């Protein structure tokens, strides 16, 4: 990748974390960024927890950019059924594509990952990223975030390899909002021994942080603004 955020991108990149920490936005932006690197990219939305706002909402934009999108067969419908599409197996087994997995929130969401973990571990070419937003009420401190991180690892049986600091206050996010969370991110890094792989923020902001990853937010319904 151009800004070398992950060095040589891993074959499979997973975004896990507390729900509402921004996994879907990151997965969409990351897949779009990855798509420019010459290898075909597939994004799988395997969020079995959240019925409303999800990465599959950006299907058209992703497909226009050439990213294959795999989502739950009943995503964005009235069927609230946690069934997973068979295509996800292809995504973790085929080694000629790059895969991005948007995993559901918390340990409950990460449970869905378990069946794919043997393939991911066997190949051994993955980045499993814990997405942290230190403005979420249950992950405001490094030790609270650590608790969620461990719960997710236990449920998924896949160890994390890095941390993404995606701290934000939605529409009220400023540069300072992001910068003030760097100490908590470093503390979580110290507690876990995992690197803070990058810090993500809305593309119109320019916070003074190392390894910045500007992202374009998925379009929410403008009717509510």
């Amino acid at each position, binding site marked *: 990748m151009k800004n070398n955020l992950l060095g040589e991108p891993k074959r499979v990149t997973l975004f896990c974390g507390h729900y509402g920490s921004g996994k879907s936005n990151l997965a969409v932006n990351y897949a779009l960024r990855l798509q420019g690197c010459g290898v075909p990219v597939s994004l799988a939305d395997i969020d079995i927890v959240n*019925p409303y706002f999800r990465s599959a909402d950006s299907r058209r934009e992703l497909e226009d950019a050439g990213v294959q999108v795999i989502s739950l067969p009943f995503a964005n419908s009235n069927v609230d059924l946690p069934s997973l599409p068979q295509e996800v197996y292809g995504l973790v087994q085929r080694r000629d594509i790059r895969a991005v997995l948007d995993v559901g929130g918390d340990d409950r969401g990460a449970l869905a990952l378990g069946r794919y973990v043997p393939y991911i571990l066997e190949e051994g070419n993955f980045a499993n990223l814990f997405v942290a937003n230190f403005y*979420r*009420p249950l992950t405001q401190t490094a030790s609270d975030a650590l608790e969620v991180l461990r719960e997710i690892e236990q449920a998924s049986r896949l160890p994390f390899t890095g941390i993404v600091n995606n701290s934000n206050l939605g529409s009220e996010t400023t540069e300072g909002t992001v910068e003030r969370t760097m100490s908590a991110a470093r503390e979580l890094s110290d507690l876990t021994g995992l690197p803070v792989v990058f810090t993500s923020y809305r593309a119109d902001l320019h916070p003074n942080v190392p390894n910045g990853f500007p992202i374009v937010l998925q379009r929410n319904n403008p*009717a509510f603004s």
Partner: protein
Amino acid sequence: MGKVLMKGNEAIAEAAIRAGCRHYFGYPITPQTELAAYMAKRMPKIGGVFLQAESEIAAINMVYGVAATGRRVMTSSSSPGVSLKQEGISYIAGSDLPALIVNVQRGGPGLGGIQPSQSDYFQATKGGGHGDYHLIVLAPCSVQEMADMTALAFDLADKYRVPSMLLADGTIGQMMEPVELPQAQEPVFEEKDWAVTGTKCKRPHHIVNSLYLVPEELEKKNFERFETYRRIEENEVRYEAFRMDDAEYCVVAFGIAARVAKNAIVAARNEGIKVGLIRPITLWPFPKKALADAAKQCKGFLSVELSMGQMIEDVKLAIDCSRPVQLCNRAGGMIPSPDEVLAGIRALCGQEV
């Protein structure tokens, strides 16, 4: 720490804890499940009770039990689950107990769908269960209001010994916004002259009950209760007026529909249409007087709802049908767009759509 980023459902849960609620009974249902999930995580850490009951009916009767002891208690669900709770809600109202019921509405009737709706307006404001009773019904339209109105709903319920309801919808429950949480208050266990807390052989029994075998007594109870309702209607009406000062047309909308309507009103104003919004914050008591006053200056009303048209009846009653009242609506989990509301406003003032 200042603001945090929360889902509406979480904001209710945290605000309830901060309002001193230590008892939550519920059963998961989309789109309010995060509320129960949040309680499941937090309550054990602060010495509170989270209990996933075997059904919504069990949960509301557990609420009835704790409410009888004078402690702050709540349950939450979404439309089909709230229907199941109606018997218990009627018993709680008939026993003059404070409690909080949260309905994060989804499309109906029946199992319906999981997308947002406002089609439980009748159920929330006109009884829902059997008998002559009212709930105090609050309609938040943002994540911040989800938090603020949770505290208010508990306070009003305690003040009048009337169960209160937060009537939200799936969108506000699911959407994330920055929110400033209210100050935490420790639970207060002041002695109440009706709460069932054990006599310790020092006082006569307090009896919590909705059964009256003598009709004269039951009638007297109903009269007393409606005197309380009259005081609530007199003192607790809340609404927001938006650009009503010079308005010639009035949009009426609550919750998420009001947010859509505001955008449409700004667009209509840009076209030179003098239109404003009255947003009922209390659906019961309904802001009748504000609407009656608006009828003196406005030529027509537009009720914007995520239902087949329920609040529109209260709008017509409030203005005594003195002006035309039209409906702009979507149903079954759909939300009207600002353009659809704008078209409704244009039609109301007789313009080509």
